[in-house]
């Protein structure tokens, strides 16, 4: 394998070449030939990105849907998701410390496995994030309608999609005109959310195990057998999309050798535990049939069950914040994904232009916001979630493969500060588990995902066939 900056080669159909420059990474800055890039994110910032992206979907939108499919065993589905996420998070952390630059999963795969795999992952990730954002926004729409209902304005579910569209457009415009202190706000939201959830889960958990309140009616753990547990795991895996987003800001993180692994693995552990406990509490409060009937906002009824109107209000408010924070974080990640591929000449360079007035990547944000609104309009929660998971799982699987490939004949530049424990079993199982989870999705989601990947490969063949990225740091 070649190594060093000379490995990036070729040009796309417009004659643009990958922009790869030799850099020196320190704990405080990335130093290129003529400029320095400040590292400004700390550990809390990294955790906030991971938790803030992940926490919205799983806890607030899925309990009803998942319980309807798998019964109380939905908690196991979330557990499986957490384990898969963790198996991928460890390799991601190693690669991120070896290549602490912006770009994340796409970057590792294009450098480890070459430009074709990179293009497929990079472009699919763009759409994967678009699907995920659309899913978060639809979830947000349900919570917005419930919020209105909670304050006494019953508008019905007809307004879910219009509200989601409105906020989707709002986030895009907000991000394009520059959001001061958005990260601090995001940190605040994450802290608030965690407080609401921990209080709620603490109380609900005590009740669920029968220490306080009325004993709950016991229910069979897996009334529908094991298969639904796995298909549900595939559905709810969307809840765990977000930890790899931390790697996309690796170039901005202080002391990356320490903070990247801690925030990637830490956010998966925190979120995984919260999810499993939440589902346990939710299925203990109601039978899973009833939970399924409540649908996307079943958690509100769980909150009401335990803590009355205050509980319902807290959950409605939390759900609103969580889906909002997930959606916003994903819009931003999408524009970063577009930047990463356009820097490597897999998309036209103008796609990553930023304007000097606001300092924001307006073109990329538009390329994120436009398709998101189209998908929100479909309103298909489960399909949106599964396609998002599908495209991310492909990337996660390939991250593990890229790690195996890089470790097999370690190039000279490969010096990660963090190494996966249990190599090669952990990345190998991570890859297999990621790809296997895809097998349990609905055929329509699988076909949509495959179509997007084929289109991405076709685009590469047409537009950037000559671009070589393997080993180009």
């Amino acid at each position: 394998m070649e190594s060093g900056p000379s490995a990036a080669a070729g040009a796309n159909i417009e004659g643009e070449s990958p922009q790869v420059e030799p850099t020196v990474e320190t704990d405080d800055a990335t130093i290129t030939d003529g400029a320095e890039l400040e590292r400004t994110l700390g550990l809390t910032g990294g955790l906030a990105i991971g938790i803030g992206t992940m926490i919205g979907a799983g806890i607030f939108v899925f309990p009803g849907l998942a319980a309807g499919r798998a019964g109380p065993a939905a908690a196991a589905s979330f557990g499986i998701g957490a384990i898969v996420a963790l198996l991928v998070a460890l390799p991601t952390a190693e690669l991120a410390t070896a290549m602490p630059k912006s770009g994340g999963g796409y970057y590792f795969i294009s450098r480890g496995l070459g430009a074709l795999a990179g293009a497929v992952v990079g472009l699919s990730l763009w759409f994967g994030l678009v699907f995920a954002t659309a899913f978060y926004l639809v979830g947000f729409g349900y919570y917005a309608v419930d919020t209105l209902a909670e304050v006494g304005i019953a508008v019905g579910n007809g307004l879910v999609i219009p509200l989601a569209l409105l906020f989707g457009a709002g986030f895009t415009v907000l991000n394009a005109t520059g959001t001061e202190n958005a990260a601090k706000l995001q940190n605040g939201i994450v802290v608030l959310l965690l407080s609401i959830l921990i209080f709620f889960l603490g109380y609900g958990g005590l009740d669920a195990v029968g220490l306080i309140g009325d004993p709950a009616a016991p229910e069979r753990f897996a009334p529908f057998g094991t298969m639904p547990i796995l298909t549900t795991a595939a559905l709810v895996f969307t809840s765990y999309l977000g930890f790899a987003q931390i790697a996309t800001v690796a170039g901005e993180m202080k002391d990356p050798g320490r903070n990247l692994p801690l925030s990637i693995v830490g956010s998966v552990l925190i979120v995984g535990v919260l999810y499993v406990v939440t589902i346990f509490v939710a299925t203990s409060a109601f039978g899973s049939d009833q939970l399924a009937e409540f649908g996307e906002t079943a958690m509100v009824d769980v909150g009401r069950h335990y803590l009355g109107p205050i509980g319902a209000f807290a959950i409605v408010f939390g759900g609103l914040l969580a889906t909002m924070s997930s959606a916003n974080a994903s819009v931003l990640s999408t524009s970063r994904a577009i930047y990463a591929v356009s820097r490597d000449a897999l998309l036209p360079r103008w796609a990553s232009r930023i304007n000097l007035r606001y300092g924001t990547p307006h073109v990329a944000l538009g390329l994120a916001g436009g398709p998101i609104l189209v998908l929100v309009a479909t309103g298909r929660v489960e399909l949106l979630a599964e396609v998002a998971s599908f495209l991310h799982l492909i990337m996660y699987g390939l991250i593990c493969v890229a790690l195996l490939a890089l470790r097999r004949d370690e190039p000279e530049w490969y010096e990660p500060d963090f190494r996966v424990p249990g190599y090669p079993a952990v990345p190998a199982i991570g890859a297999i588990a990621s790809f296997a989870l895809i097998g349990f999705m609905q055929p329509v989601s699988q076909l949509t995902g495959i179509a997007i990947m084929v289109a991405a490969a076709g685009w590469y063949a047409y537009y950037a066939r000559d671009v070589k990225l393997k080993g180009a740091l």
Partner: protein
Amino acid sequence: MTRVLVPLAILEGESVATGLTTLLAPMDVTVLGYHVLPEQTPPDQARLQYEERATDALVDLTAEFETAGGRADHRLVFTHDREQSIDRVAAETGADAYAITGVTGPVDRLLVTLTGDVAVDRLCSFAAELVADRDIGVTLFLATDDEAEGRDVLEAAARTLSERGIDVGIELAGDDPAFESLVEAAVDHDAIVMGEQAPSLRSLVFGEETERVAAESVGPVLVVRRLEEPEDAVERRD
């Protein structure tokens, strides 16, 4: 040799008044061109697009300092956090002071404020080095409620400066309100030298005092950095 960092929002067209380039001629100058980006923009994305433009501007600015008779180099940083970049580069270059650029013509008289928890000796020797052999007067300023001790401090400091042939004046103000009396004293001066303050609740609420002085006085402010902070203070941003 004493080094002064001159941070400039380079892509916003921030520039240096001729008065300041001339004033800094006896010093080594590092022009720090920075560009602050909102959180949603990766710094590298901005570098790709604007590095060349920013470097051109920096080279021109550096040349201006050299024309004025000083020695200058430049650095370019893309960042989300201006303060952090200035602190880091100041520490890396071993800069003794940094400049908050303002508008000024030729500098005839400096105001050096000794108010607060600052190293009087460092401030005085910095001022002396800045004045060098030039015909620039210095006013030492101190606001305190302990008038007797304040006068002692001022007179002792004035003595060390006048021994080096500098035209020194002193100005003592009551403690209340120190900031306003400093700004008032600044009116008759072309530039201000002050010490970097320790972070406090006050600076958290109202902003850095140095920035406020610069905003109120319009002219340039040279901030003499505090010496090496203890390790735990460096970690606090995490």
